[in-house]
């Protein structure tokens, strides 16, 4: 039992502690599995897994679309978010308010509305026809507003003594940002950022409304085709977890690596 409790002064790599970690994890997981099992057992439902298996290529194709679109949007949204975070702190006020309005309105309205408006109104006006490109753009703009706020919070968490110090050693504003503010802000932003990336991946499912046949849409189509209520949600959940868990894991590792005590 003692291995399941950790003491304040414990070193992270003691053998009893490692055993405790594995045991605790197993305990927690099996508890949850049991719960799920009990719930499903009480459900009077006629499972039909073979038809889900039949449609496996549909799952895989959808998943790949989701991966591609999300990856592209992830990078673009970081760019947009970074620029916007800086612009909302710009000394040129119209620019600052432009981006502030962008951030608030984008975070304040549903992605659904933005998706339809941008695709059928704005993209149409400038004759941007490729739905994948527009889709990635919409997703990036949406997520970028959140990333912008996350970065802003990170930037503001850097104490003024750090900025004074950076100035004193002759850093330009850019160097101050690059070597002092950014590393510290990144460390503080990582958890929120990882959450936002997971959101982006999941939000990409809304691209189905402009007929991009991504993972969720395809899974639901399988459900419709096979008239199953639940079966295809298992591959769906797993498919998203395959993408999101590594992000969380990576973020945790980076958090540890970049850790510093202020």
């Amino acid at each position, binding site marked *: 039992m003692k291995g399941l409790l950790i003491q304040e002064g414990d070193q992270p790599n003691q053998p009893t502690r490692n055993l405790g970690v594995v045991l605790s994890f197993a305990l927690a997981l099996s508890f949850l599995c049991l719960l799920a099992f009990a719930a499903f057992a009480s459900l009077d439902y006629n499972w039909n897994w073979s038809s889900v298996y039949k449609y496996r290529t549909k799952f895989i194709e959808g998943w790949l679309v989701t991966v591609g679109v999300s990856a592209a949007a992830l990078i673009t949204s970081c760019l947009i978010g970074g620029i916007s975070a800086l612009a909302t702190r710009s000394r040129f006020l119209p620019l600052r308010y432009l981006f502030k309005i962008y951030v608030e309105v984008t975070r304040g309205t549903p992605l659904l509305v933005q998706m339809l408006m941008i695709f059928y109104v704005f993209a149409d006006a400038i004759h941007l026809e490729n739905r994948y490109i527009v889709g990635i753009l919409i997703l990036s703009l949406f997520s970028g507003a959140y990333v912008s706020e996350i970065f802003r919070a990170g930037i503001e968490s850097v104490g003024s003594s750090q900025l004074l110090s950076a100035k004193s050693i002759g850093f330009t504003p850019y160097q101050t940002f690059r070597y002092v503010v950014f590393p510290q802000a990144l460390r503080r932003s990582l958890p929120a950022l990882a959450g936002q990336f997971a959101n982006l991946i999941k939000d990409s499912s809304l691209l189905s409304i*402009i007929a991009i046949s991504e993972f969720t849409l395809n899974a639901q189509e399988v459900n419709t085709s096979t*008239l199953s*209520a639940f079966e295809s949600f298992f591959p769906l959940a797993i498919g998203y977890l395959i993408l999101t868990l590594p992000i969380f894991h990576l973020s945790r590792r980076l958090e540890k690596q970049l850790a510093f005590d202020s």
Partner: protein
Amino acid sequence: SSGPEDNTLVVGMELSYPPFEMSDENNEPAGVSVDLAKELGKHLGRPVRIENIAFAGLISSLKTGKIDLIISSMTATEERAQSIDFSTPYLETGLCLLVSKQSDINSIVDADKSGNAIAVKQGTTGHLYAIDHVKHATVLPLEKETSAVVEVTQGKADAFIYDQMSTFRNWKRHPDTTRPILKPFKTEHWAIGIRKGNQELVNSVNAFLTKFKADGGFEELGDRYLSEEKKAFKELGYPFLF
């Protein structure tokens, strides 16, 4: 849902397919299916409650006993019949096309050319038809009927496969930019969905439908909700829905 002591008849439908399933200005369920459900309740002597459920969730809700019946313009397909039972059909309609006003497409064969894009609404029989029969054109499965229409008006899609009545109504809404090709290339039947193993209810629903039809109930519903369509279909020479 209905326990043994509560004999309310819970009817599931998606209230987004006017004039069959919709909400009125006071946000109360209304439309052909709602009236039909109420008539059915009267016939069975049970109070009726309408549950507004997304179309994709209707069958799950029925199977898990959250509702007793589906009356939601649902086409009785073979696949669906494997997991739920259907009453005898109460309406016949067909799939047809909505195309852009300038388009020279006149049939599904014209539309199914490589380089063309055909819009469908996700999960509808039009979608299922497209999956099985559209060989050359790209299929655009859209979540919303209105999006599909906009795709056609903007030339993003060359045709939109949908049922006759809706196609007619969408054309009326956008007469300057669209053109309907109302001749059906596939007919289908709507029926009431009932949980499997409930033969008694199937029987009484069927009995009700027969009686309702014989009493001119459907004629009356058509006049109440679809008078314009009824007239137009008569002029075009297509059989009307009921």
